[in-house]
């Protein structure tokens, strides 16, 4: 384990302490804490050292993400957004934009990435947000929904239509015409700062469009989401670890009918399934991270697989943990109650379970298809 990871793991355990329940109930994270972690580069640890980052490998950042996910999925969601913004700048931006924005993302500024719209969720081609060139500037009009971390963000990476293709623009949250309205009561990751973002004639210099824009929108979104999916997948490993630990402790400590709960076979089965889920999710994430670190083309499918397996296992595992703890865990703020709500949300975002299944099914069919002249 690299030094940064050992130190950061210990630090996060201290920083979160026993406050995750309180943050969940209040629907708010302490912004100064986010800025402190941001300045240390911990919210987007894979940013290269030359841009002020830690330069973490995917596997190490994954282990860190799982740790944060085991403590607080809202904080982990903020990390996912910041990391996805950084990755988007890295991939879609030009050299000047990487030099300008990445040090800000590792310097304490907070970031969100805005994809979804009222009429464009899974179908990104239905996006109506428009980026229009006007001389040396661009003007952006549109409305984004459910933008994670937008409530805390200093910068928002906004995706939209641009010319014949798409574009991603780095929008300072205080630009005239930008309105951010927090989602009143999200069902999961309640403190992650989900917000709706309205852009009304938002004017920015041309240099705010990453890589000049005009690339195909689905390719832009697929590129950005790849990081988000990896981060969500590892976060779900954390959810499973928290559930396994809570259910294991409760089932071995509490006695009913003269025996520890764990000795009752129907309860024991929940523990066995939770253990298997945590291991399966960990291994599938480790494999995907290895593909990232090796820069293998398999990373594309391995990432979707990891997100799919890890989030569905987490949703099932969290339900089992609530079942084992019963009334002991059935109150808002409790670790398994949070896990239950947070894990379900993870099946919806960054490519729903069904979208992941469609991608995996197409991949399976393509791999098995017979070779014919095209």
């Amino acid at each position: 384990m690299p030094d940064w990871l050992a130190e950061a793991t210990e630090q996060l355990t201290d920083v979160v302490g026993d406050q995750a329940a309180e943050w969940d109930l209040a629907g708010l994270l302490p912004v100064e804490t986010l800025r402190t972690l941001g300045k240390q580069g911990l919210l987007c640890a894979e940013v290269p050292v030359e841009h002020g980052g830690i330069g973490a490998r995917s596997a190490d950042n994954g282990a860190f993400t799982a740790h944060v996910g085991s403590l607080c999925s809202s904080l982990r969601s903020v990390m996912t957004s910041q990391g996805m913004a950084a990755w988007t700048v890295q991939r879609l931006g030009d050299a000047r934009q990487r030099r300008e924005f990445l040090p800000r993302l590792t310097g304490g500024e907070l970031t969100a990435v805005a994809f979804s719209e009222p009429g464009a969720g899974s179908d990104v081609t239905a996006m109506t947000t428009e980026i229009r060139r006007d001389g040396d500037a661009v003007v952006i009009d549109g409305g984004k929904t459910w933008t994670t971390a937008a409530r805390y963000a200093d910068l928002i990476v906004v995706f939209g239509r641009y010319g014949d293709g798409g574009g991603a623009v780095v929008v300072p949250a205080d630009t005239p015409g930008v309105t951010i309205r927090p989602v009143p009561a999200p069902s999961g990751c309640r403190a992650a700062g989900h917000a709706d973002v309205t852009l009304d004639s938002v004017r920015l210099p041309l240099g705010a469009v990453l890589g000049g824009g005009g690339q195909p929108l689905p390719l832009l979104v697929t590129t950005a989401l790849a990081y988000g999916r990896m981060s969500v997948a590892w976060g779900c490993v954390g959810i499973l670890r928290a559930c396994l630990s809570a259910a294991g402790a409760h089932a071995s400590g509490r006695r009913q009918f003269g025996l520890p709960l764990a000795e009752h076979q129907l309860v024991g089965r929940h523990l066995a399934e939770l253990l298997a889920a945590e291991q399966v999710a960990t291994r599938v994430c480790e494999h995907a991270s290895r593909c990232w670190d090796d820069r293998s083309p398999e990373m594309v499918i391995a990432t979707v697989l990891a997100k799919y397996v890890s989030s569905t296992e987490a949703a099932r595992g969290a339900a089992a943990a609530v079942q084992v703890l019963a009334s002991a865990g059935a109150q808002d703020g409790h670790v398994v109650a949070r896990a239950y709500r947070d894990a379900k949300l993870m099946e919806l975002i960054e490519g729903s379970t069904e979208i992941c299944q469609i991608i995996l099914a197409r991949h399976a069919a393509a791999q098995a298809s017979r070779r014919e002249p095209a």
Partner: protein
Amino acid sequence: MNIGAEETVQRRILEFVEERTKADVAVDKDLFDSGLVNSMFAMELIVHLEQAFGIAILGEDLRLDNFRTVERMTSLVDRLREEPVAGHA
């Protein structure tokens, strides 16, 4: 036949595309119009080209036109191999 460096690049790209699409592909075939390639596979192609040829395909080079045919990808790789690596993220 004169097998120069460019032809080797082209051959390697063609092998990857044919292996992944399970189809025989002409070097000037439009992969997107023929439905052989979607955005997931486009990303695999990008990662493959980066890894196989030690280049970084970033920003404005992510245009579909650069990946439309095996020939276009070959030109992209040739151009990026000549550029200094300072542009690496």
